[in-house]
């Protein structure tokens, strides 16, 4: 450890590497933590920091990550690696150009993005997607904390529109027996459609609820092992990393609206059970809609946001040409986030001038 420590000290001093200080510093702090102390009151500081915060999300994503390897082979790891490398390069480049620290947000974006992709997607499309997502979804807005849209979703939507053939036509059966994908590189049995597409086409589903719950139905890499997603999501809520309001409002409104819709229009609106257990709903509700930067920060705003997400998801799934509505509704509501927050703030905090006039009039 001492040797590495000294190495960093030397690196800091090299003149030609001055420009790359953010990178060296990121690696340095990644290994050794900080030596910074408080300067005034409060003299103590919570042990929580952004590194821990992001790592908790990564830990919560591990069940889905392992499931994606099990169901779709080691190619999943290749996809994740491409995502991390390209995303990391964009983040680091911007840190160097702007001269600020490398922020840890890309640790989460870089993992969420591959998990919402189809398992056989060409690796170069993964690279293009994450590049677009981090560049146009985050960095052009000013970096972590300032982006309006969820960067992983920006990337996902870009490639959905740019490369529709790769994104919605090629679905593969997951490995489900024995060691599954741990013995394979990539899936090879082509399947006709994902459960959502079958529902849309009015075809009877060949999968039971248990199959859907455990991930035996085809879908995006990390979205199908729903048991793991729920465990991860609850873990994040229990550790206070994720606010419970958004997933509860989102899933609750999907349940209520699809129950009602299913009674009125059973042909077009699928039953609540199918809605909850298909597509990227659970993954989106726990991991993407809850992104603190792009979702409302007011408490009532979170409820409105979640309920609207549910409404749009049902509408898009049932009445549009697309089979899945989760990512479109999240991106749409990301755009409405500032509006929701400012309306709630205006209602909650009445203008002080009006208030004081009222008080003075009373006297």
């Amino acid at each position, binding site marked *: 450890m001492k040797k590495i420590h000294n190495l960093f000290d030397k690196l800091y001093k090299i003149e030609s590497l001055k420009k790359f200080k953010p990178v060296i510093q990121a690696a340095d702090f990644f290994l050794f933590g900080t*030596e910074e102390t408080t300067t*005034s009151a*409060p003299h103590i500081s919570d*042990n929580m*920091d952004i590194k821990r*915060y992001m790592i908790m999300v990564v830990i919560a994503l591990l069940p889905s990550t392992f499931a994606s390897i099990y169901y779709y082979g080691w190619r999943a790891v290749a996809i994740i690696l491409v995502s991390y490398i390209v995303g990391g390069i964009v983040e680091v480049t911007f840190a160097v150009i702007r001269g600020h620290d490398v922020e840890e947000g890309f640790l989460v974006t870089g993992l969420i993005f591959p998990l919402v992709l189809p398992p056989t997607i060409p690796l170069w499309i993964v690279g293009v997607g994450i590049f677009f997502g981090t560049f146009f979804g985050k960095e052009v807005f000013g970096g*972590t904390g300032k982006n309006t849209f969820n960067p992983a979703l920006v990337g996902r939507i870009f490639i959905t529109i740019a490369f529709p053939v790769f994104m919605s036509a090629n679905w593969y059966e997951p490995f489900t027996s024995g060691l599954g994908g741990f013995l394979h590189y990539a899936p090879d049995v082509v399947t006709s459609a994902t459960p959502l597409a079958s529902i849309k086409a009015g075809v009877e589903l060949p999968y039971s609820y248990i199959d859907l719950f455990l991930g035996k139905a085809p879908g995006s890499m990390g979205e199908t092992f729903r048991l793991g997603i729920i465990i991860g999501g609850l873990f994040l809520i229990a550790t*206070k990393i994720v606010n419970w309001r958004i997933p509860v409002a989102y899933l609750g409104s999907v349940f209520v609206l699809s129950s009602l819709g299913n009674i009125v229009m059973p042909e077009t609106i699928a039953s609540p059970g199918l809605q909850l257990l298909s597509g990227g709903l659970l993954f989106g509700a726990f991991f993407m809609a809850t992104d603190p930067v792009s979702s409302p920060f007011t408490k009532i705003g979170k409820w409105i946001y979640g309920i609207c997400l549910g409404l749009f998801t049902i509408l898009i799934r049932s009445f549009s040409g697309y089979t899945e509505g989760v990512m479109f509704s999240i991106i749409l509501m990301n755009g409405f986030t500032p509006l929701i927050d400012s309306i709630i703030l205006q209602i909650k905090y009445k203008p002080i001038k009006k208030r004081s006039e009222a*008080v003075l009039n009373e006297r």
Partner: protein
Amino acid sequence: MKVNYKKFSTGGYEFKDFKGNPINKVIDMEIPQTLTIPLKQGFGGEVSVIVKPGEYVKAGQIIGIDKNAISSPVHSSINGIVEEIKTIKHLNKEVNAVVIKSDGTKEWQPLEGHSREWNKLSTEQIQKLLYMSGVTSLDKSGIPTIFKSSVISPEQVENVIVYGIGTEPFNISLSVLLQDERKSQFVTGLKILKKVMSNAKFYLAVNKKNSKLIQELNNLLFDVDWIELYALPPKYPLELDEVLIPTILGKKYPYGYLAANIGVIALSMQTVTQVYDAVVQGKPLIERTVALGGTGWKENVHMKVRVGTSIEDITSLYLKEHESYRLILNSMLTNKSLTSKSLPMDRTSSVLIALKENKEREVFSWLRAGKNKDSYSNAFLCSLMKVSNKSCDTNIHGEYRSCISCGFCEDVCPVDIIPHLIQKYVKKNMLDEEVIDYGIFNCIGCNLCSYVCTSKIDVAKDIREGQEKLTKDECGRDTIVEPYFDLIGLKEFKNL
């Protein structure tokens, strides 16, 4: 007496189980050789000195008094000779202080007119005893008397709250403060205060987990109907007037003003025991019980120290050597650190904290299980286990990052504002009506938002900066807060 159990749901955070909590052991500290006694201690202004260098003074003798301004007398706390009168920087203010060289004797001179049968004393006599003992200068608004000891008169007091909840990371132990006969003396102290502030309703606020104390107080006060007991969770910052009063009385607090301005006096338990000492035993305020908190002490004992004892006299006895510690008086969350060990302990001292200066870097700190890492989030093993040795030091445990709106600061904020929102307005220098509407002046500076911030932003400091700038632009609290309240004693408060 009625016992109410009450929740505290607007924010707050329970600091518990930190290593270095004061234990139930009291030590009488020896009389130090020299004392430095500041002429401004506690509530009120600086008093004018009435002794001269070379003069012999007795412990308990008044050495400074100002009958015309809001203040309480200051006493010599030892027998000895006045050495000099000098200016010191005490609690961030330049004040004059009297340096006294001790003759080594312990005796003190009792107050004139004190009586075991305090009931037979007139209200005026009691008030005189309280004023002359200096007890009236304790806590945030002082104790009102016919003398100029607070901004209001005793008849104007509608509510008195006595608190001993223990919400700081390190608290003075109530078992020490109310040991044995001290408990009934405490109750007598309450009755004395009731005689002075006869219009007031009294409230006791204690930690709801301290069921033994609740039971004992209930037994002692069972036939008293002017007092109510509130059992509250030990969440920081419940002991601050600004949070305690709305929680118990359901009253709105005029942030930035004194509790006395709305007719409320909040006192700590030690104050009430010292009221008893002054009236019944005639003991002036020359001694305080101080707890030693934090890992820097050889033993986390309580000490009875004479007012004016220099911090060095305590540290030379108890502070661990070879390591560097930061010394803080009373609160690690709101108070500045002590810059010099030559500063004296004054009347307001109750906890002296030695916090470890930790510049050490921790390898892979973000990956550790965190068996003794305190956090508002539940992201460390510590929140699952019952541990009693959470570490606490000055390290910030992370790097400065941009705000990701995680919402922790809003969750813990005790005055229901959105700290990160206001902080962003201040940082962008958008100091307009909007930020006032969002409640920038509601911030009471409890600093909890800065404590929990995952991005290590000093949110509270930025908010304070915004408040100062707005006040400079004549948009201060006198235009934002004042019009909403019928404040009493406002002129006196502003003259302080």
